[in-house]
Every structure is written in C-alpha cells, then in structure tokens.
C-alpha cells in the first residue's frame, strides 16, 4: 500500500500548478468573483474561456479522452491531481456536457463523420452542449420518456418537451434521448440517441428559475423539429445502451472532494472572523464539532475515491460502486453549504448581500451563502437521485 505520489506524479502536479498560475486569467477570476457577489448570471465567456485555454494545451480540456481524439489521456492519478489543483486555485470548472457526457459517446459509438464534425469543437470549447434527457413525466423513470422522433425521408421529426436542460440558454447543440419505437416490448428498447442543432427551427428554450433566484435550468420544447438522420448516434432504438454508457463512463471527480475541501477551508476562515459567545465562532465546541465531522466524512470519501481510482487504473473499471461516490459526495456538498450559511448568522438573510439601491451589506464573505445552500439541495436530486443511486447499489453491488 502506498498513497505517496510517484516522482512523475509530483512533476505532473507542479506542472499543472504552474500552468494554472501562469494561464488562469485574472480578469476571469475577477469577473466570476464580482458576479457571484452580485448574483449576476455567468456569461458564456465566463463558463468557457478556461476550457478554451486548456483546449489549446495538450488536450487538458478533456482529461479522460484518448490521445487519438485529442484528449489528454491522463492516468487516474493524474486526473485526481488535475482536479485537486483546479479546485485549489478555484478555477471555473469545465462544463461536463460536452467533454464528459456526449464526447465519449461520440468517440465510442459515433461514425467517422460524426467524430470529425463534433469532437474538435467539444475539445476546443467552441461548441457548447446541453443534455436532453429528463422530461416532465420522466425523472427517475427516464426510460418512460415520450419525446418522439418519427423518420420521414432523410429527417427525424422531433416533437415533445425536455426539462431541467442545464444552461440550454448558452447551448449550440443538444444530445437527446427520443422515442423512435413506441411499440417496443420494453420502454428501453424504443429509444434513440440524437444530436440536435439548437438553431433548428421549432426549438424553444424557456428559463426555469431556481429557489435561489438563479437561472441554470430550462424547459426545452420541440415542435416539428427536423433533424437530419446522419445525426443519429449508433443504431436506431439502441439509445438506452449509449445513455447508460454515458452515465457510467465519466466518474472522475463525481465526488467533488477537492472542491468540498476548499469550501471547508473557507468555512474555517469565515468562522474565525465571525463571533459567537464573545469568541470567534471557530472556538465554539458545537460548531467545531460539525466542521470536524464534515472533515472526517471528506477524508473517508477521499480515500474511497482513491481506492476506486486505484481499481480503475488496474483496469478493473469503476463499476456501480461509484454511486457511492455520488451519494456521499453530494451529502458532503450539502453539509458544507449548510455550514457556510450557518457560519454567517443573520447575514444569511440579505438576498445577494445588496440593498435595493445596490449597496453591499454585511461582510463580503457572507454574500449568497444562503443562496448556495438553497441551490445545492439540487445535488442529491440530479444525476439520478440519491434514492435511485441506492437502488443501483442494491441491485448491482449487493445483488438484492
């Protein structure tokens, strides 16, 4: 047993750290920092410019992709280090929809034309993707989805509604699960995987406001949308297989350990500035105990993730145990956002920390911490709710 990094890994770590410090734009840090404080939506540039910089550097925008498709092909340890360093420097994270989701589906199941057309744009960050999976009547029971695609000549005619389409307001393309065979014996057997250009006539995106006031997700409507048949991935009615592959494929960083660690560090700093019982909050035994509890969970989770990575690098594949990483990872994210809100006491109240005439109130660090808490209730719901993750473990790991 050995958890020390090899000398190559240490070299890699210092390379990543140096690259970030030389290349992460100060303007981006400032822009994102200001917007978070004032509750302004991040622009497409805010979301993508770091991706674009990484895309020009040895495929670092796609850590898990094979080199043949322009990716970095990091080892699991390198992925872990990369994730840690990005979190440490609080870099804007890479949007997962292109790189982690549709990209691997395209290079695994797509044809040569599709690879040539789509992979470069995902890698460079020039093309923004979103995900069309959930529907109003199909959340956890995804396979019951109803959006239909009927073949007419060289086109599929798509009708229906997708929902929770994250950042569809910026998207150039959407990858969709659609029903191509409503007669199939099992609902899973009639689903296909389609790539759709968001500029196609008949697509309407409507914002859904979340409880913290943010606009992250949307409803996406399809009204007789004509999609060329060459945008079908793999075979018709085989979409469910590709969808499952997508869900199982990219699990590095799913636990968000590095980001939660950073957040916990911040909470300690906040708690040393806040006062309680006439002393810094960090001295309050009840609060200290909550922090220690979160830290222990995080330490355990970090080693659970490392064990999964070690298994992965031995070629054994991560498997459904990664549902565990999702459950615990999101538990901790919620624990941490709650602690942060708790730390600032009354100053959790002012919405976005500004008055009606746009003056800041309260300490800078308190801004929008309650917003984060409310926003992060989503984490145990999205990506397969934590109850669904438990069903997966029950079936696939415990054989119940």
């Amino acid at each position, binding site marked *: 047993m050995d958890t020390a990094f090899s000398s190559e890994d240490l070299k890699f770590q210092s390379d990543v750290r140096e690259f970030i410090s030389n290349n992460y734009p100060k303007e981006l840090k400032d822009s994102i920092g200001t917007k978070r404080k004032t509750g302004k939506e991040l622009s497409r540039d805010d979301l993508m410019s770091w991706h674009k910089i990484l895309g020009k550097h040895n495929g670092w925008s796609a850590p898990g992709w094979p080199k043949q498709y322009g990716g970095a092909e990091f080892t699991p340890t390198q992925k872990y280090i990369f994730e840690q360093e990005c979190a440490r420097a609080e870099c804007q994270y890479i949007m997962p929809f292109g790189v982690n989701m549709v990209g691997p589906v395209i290079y695994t199941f797509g044809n040569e034309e599709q690879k040539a057309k789509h992979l470069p744009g995902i890698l460079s960050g020039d093309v923004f993707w979103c995900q069309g999976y959930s529907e109003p009547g199909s959340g956890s029971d995804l396979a019951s989805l109803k959006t239909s695609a009927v073949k007419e000549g060289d086109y599929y005619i798509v009708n229906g509604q997708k929902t929770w389409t994250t950042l569809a307001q910026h998207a150039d393309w959407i990858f969709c699960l659609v029903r191509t065979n409503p007669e199939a014996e099992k609902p899973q057997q009639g689903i296909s995987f389609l790539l759709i250009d968001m500029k196609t006539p008949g697509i309407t995106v409507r914002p859904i406001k979340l409880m913290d006031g943010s606009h992250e997700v949307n409803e996406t409507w399809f009204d007789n949308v004509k999609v060329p048949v060459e945008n079908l991935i793999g075979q018709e009615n085989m979409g469910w297989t590709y969808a499952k592959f997508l869900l199982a494929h990219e699990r590095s960083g799913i636990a968000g350990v590095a980001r939660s660690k*950073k957040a916990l560090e911040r909470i300690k700093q906040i708690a040393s500035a806040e006062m309680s019982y006439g002393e810094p909050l960090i001295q309050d035994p009840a609060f200290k105990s909550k922090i220690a509890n979160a830290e*222990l969970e995080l330490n*355990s989770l970090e*080693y659970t993730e490392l064990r999964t990575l*070690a298994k992965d690098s031995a070629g054994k594949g991560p498997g459904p145990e990664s549902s565990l990483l999702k459950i615990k990872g999101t538990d901790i994210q919620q624990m941490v956002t709650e602690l942060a809100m708790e730390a600032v006491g009354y100053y959790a109240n002012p919405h976005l920390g500004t008055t009606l005439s746009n003056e800041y109130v309260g300490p800078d660090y308190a801004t929008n911490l309650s917003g*984060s808490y409310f926003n992060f209730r989503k984490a145990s719901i999205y990506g397969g709710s934590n109850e669904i993750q*438990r069903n997966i473990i029950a079936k696939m790991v415990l054989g119940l």
Partner: protein
Amino acid sequence: MNFDYTEEQTLLENMVTSFVRDDYDWDTRCSIVKTEEGWKEENWKKFAELGLLGVPFEEDHGGLGGEATDIMIVMEQFGKGLVVEPYMPSIILAGGLISKLGSSDQKNSIIPEIISGDRRYVFAYAEPQSRFDLFDVKCSATLDGDKYIINGFKSVVFGAGMATHLIISARTEGDQRSKSGITLFLVDIKSDGITLQNYPTIDEYRASEVVIENLSVSKENILGELGNSYEAIEEQVDLSTIAICSEAVGILQVLKDSTNDYCKNRKQFGQPISANQAIQHRLVDMMIEYEQAKSILYMAITADLSNPDDRRKAASAAKARIGKAIKFVGENAIQLHGGMGVVDEYMISHFFKRATMIGILFGNVDFHMKRYIDLTQSNIQSINEDDGINLS
C-alpha cells in the same frame, strides 16, 4: 498510488484467513469462550508457529519487521473470527512498548520470549478515575533503597488473566494528571503484591481488575526512562488504536455481509425481506458506512505514522469515524435480523457486542472527535477579504 498488498502480505493474509477458517470456526470459538480460562493456549502456540507473534517486532530480535499494513491484515482477519486470544493487548500494545522503550538487554531477553509464545505481557494503564486519559495516573511508585514500591489499582486490563507479565504505569513524580512523572515497570504477574480479579467481558473476552499493594520492583525492571514514558505510551496506544480499527473493519464486513445474506433468505409476506426498498436502502447505507470506515482506516495506515502529529490525527480520525460506523452498521445489523438479532444463540449479536466494545476501547467517538478537533483546528489562517468566496 496503490492499495495492493505485497506478495508477503498476501501470504500473511492467506495464512490468518485459513487459521480463522480451519481452527476458529464459530462452534470452536463458542466452546473456547465457555471454558474456565476463556482462551485456548494451544492457539497461542499455533500463532508462534505461524510467526504471527513476531509480526511487529524487528528482524534483529527474530520478528518479521511488519508495518501498520501487516498488523492491519492480521487484526482484520482476527476480527472476522472474533478471535479472543489477547493478540492486540500483548503483541501490539505491550510488545510495542517494549520495542520502543526497552534497553538492548531487555529487548534481547524479552522479545524472543514473546515471539516464541513463552511470555505474554499486557499493559495495565487504565484506572477507575482516568477514563481515556493515559496521563491520569494515581498508581504510585516510591523509591525505597534500590527498589520501587508500587501501590495502586488498574481497571479493565485486557488479557491479564492470560498474561505471564505486566507492564504497569505508575507515578514516580508530579500530580495525578501530569504528563511527566509516569514510569513503566516490568513485573512478573505472579509477584507478591499483585492480585487479579478476572472476569469475562460482555463480548466474551477476558479482563481483570489489578490490585497492586506494596509491590516491590527493582530498578532494572523500569522500562524506558524514569518519569518520561508518556509520549511512548501515547504513541503505542495510537498504533494499537489503529490496530483495533482494523479489527473493527473486519467485524463490520461480517455484520454487513451476514445481514445482506439474512435479508435475502428471510421470507415474509411471501417474499424475501430484501425485496422491500426500506430494507434495501438500509443495507446500502450499511455498505456505504463500511466502505467509509475502510477508507479512513487506509488513510490512517498510509499516513506518516513516524510523525507524531500525523500519527495522532490519523488514529483519532480513524477511531472517531469508525466508531460512528460501528454504531450504524451494528445497530442496523441487529434490527434487520429481527428476533434473530437479539438472541445469544445466533452469531450476529456477538459481532455487534465486540464491535461496540471496540468503540469504547482507547477512547470513544466523543473522545477522539475532541482530540481530532484539538489537533486540527488551531492556526486557522484569517480570511482574505479580497478573495471571492466560491462555495459552488
């Protein structure tokens, strides 16, 4: 980065696994704990033959020079068999103190005897008032000519009834709760002045109250420096804490796997109870707790245990986190076994009881949480107002 065992470690694991399987099946274990002595001396001889008694000792003294991982391997398998022979108290804790503090004469004469199984030392440290504070020592040793006279009372000394010798912590100077002034003495358990009150524990191990009255010990039998043993005690207790965490992880695996099997086989309302989602999710949460416990154990095992601060943090983090897992997995194992969970006859309750007692040994969750907090939450750097806060 890897979590693999070396070839030697795999052999060690196979050896202990087959011992537990072949020589320590459930019926055998039940018959051992029912005997007057509460253990089987033959098993100790077998440990000696297998080389297990030498695992943590230096090769110079005939040991295997094993590290934390090797000890974990032995303890995890012993946990799966609920092995009652006093391996941790004698080999890891007392043996560790002798290796750490012994003069070369002491080590040369004692360690080979421990490895051969002819001597068993256990460490008598706890006192009625001390709870988990290793420095809270009332037991006194006063110089009388060239001998020390020891008087005091030691509580819940595990394995004392099976031991040939004791290591006694006694105060040679300072206040009752002073970290300095604690001295260790090596004594034959049959010495005049030592009275043992032996008893079975709730989890069917054996412990003793040790009454020490005018016990006379010569200066040569001081282990380590006069009045300066606290740090070594703390260190060896930390390492022993990690060892019992390994035992706990072995037990948790049995609790989790057996409960899983039981729920698949137990039928109610015409179907296995594992068909109910309420049961499935409980089993999943038990598995998650087990994995988290194992992970923090791995964190502790791979920490730099030669660095005192890292070692303290590792031991307390592991014990606190594993203590929580013990409660969750243990209590739910009983709950999901229903009536079978609460009877003495079925094995599951015995694993639960042992795990729960491990939860107390060397400090419970609250004790180690507090220690962890004291070790980690000083020197918080102050906030930089210019830095944006990013919690998402």
